[in-house]
């Protein structure tokens, strides 16, 4: 368990919904509903990381979902949203770098603005690959760095500040997904080349 990371997100839990719960979620709601519509019934689904549960209203109903988060305080905040979900969500405090799930447990893994914060993104993605079944799907809704100046410069600059209290703004997540051994099916840019969905799969062989 990365206790430094856990402490950072435990601290952020108190104000997380104020910063992220209105503007960003309202802006992304339609895109997130479309993104999470790929969750399939009768599939074993892992959602990483639950946070305060802001994404739950965008989940299709009637599913059974396993979810982890490194922060117990975040999961505590998520409980009211989990309670009203029309389906089942099982949460555990767990570090994505060291998950206790068996190999090849899940059919689908979903992430939402998560890999801006995972301390070792390639190792974290390799862990997700381990728990996915061969041919299993990885669906990511992420913000990343940009290839375009001046946005690239600004995202590097912002990361100097934001990484102390929350996420990095300059991650190369598509590159990291490939580096972890996934096959990328498609990338959809939602805002510039910064906010995007990434759809990949674990090689079947």
């Amino acid at each position, binding site marked *: 368990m990365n206790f430094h990371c856990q402490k950072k997100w435990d601290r952020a839990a108190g104000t997380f919904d104020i910063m992220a719960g209105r*503007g960003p979620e309202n802006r992304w709601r339609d895109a997130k509903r479309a993104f999470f519509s790929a969750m399939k019934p009768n599939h074993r689904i892992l959602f990483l990381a639950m946070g305060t549960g802001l994404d739950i209203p965008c989940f299709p109903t009637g599913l059974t979902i396993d979810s982890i988060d490194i922060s117990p305080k975040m999961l505590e905040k998520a409980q009211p949203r989990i309670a009203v979900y029309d389906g089942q969500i099982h949460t555990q405090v767990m570090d994505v770098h060291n998950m206790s799930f068996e190999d090849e447990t899940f059919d689908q893994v979903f992430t939402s603005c998560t890999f801006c914060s995972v301390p070792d993104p390639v190792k974290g993605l390799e862990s997700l690959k381990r728990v996915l079944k061969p041919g299993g799907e990885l669906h990511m809704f992420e913000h990343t760095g940009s290839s375009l100046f001046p946005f690239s410069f*600004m995202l590097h600059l*912002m990361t100097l500040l934001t990484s102390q209290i929350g996420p990095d703004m300059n991650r*190369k997540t598509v590159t990291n997904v490939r580096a972890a051994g996934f096959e990328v099916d498609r990338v959809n840019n939602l805002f*510039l080349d910064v906010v*995007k969905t990434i759809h990949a799969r674990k090689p079947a062989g």
Partner: protein
Amino acid sequence: MEKRPFFIAGDLISNAAVGALAALATHALIAPYLGMFVGMVLGMVLGMIISMLLTTLLFSVIWGAMEVMLPCMVSGMVAGMVPAMWHSSSAVAMERGVWIGIVVVLVTYLLSTAFSLNKEGQQA
């Protein structure tokens, strides 16, 4: 490209406000005797600080995260440089800041549309 009126209005208001305030602050705080180059650099830094404060504490809470922060930082940066390039009254500096904010929003929308059409082309 963003099509919802609430967010289009938000983008325009936030960028115009950041542009106007960045230009006004540079006009008021950075003395002309510093010269154009130093004035532009200081104005750029001041504009970015103003944009980060306004977007983090206010605009992004209402209208969104990256979609608000990134264009506003460009608006603040460019608008902060303007008074060092063209000395004028505070009202004219603010008006230029507003127009810079509006142009930045339009350019961002065009770039975003171009990226959205490029499904596999980016490697961020």
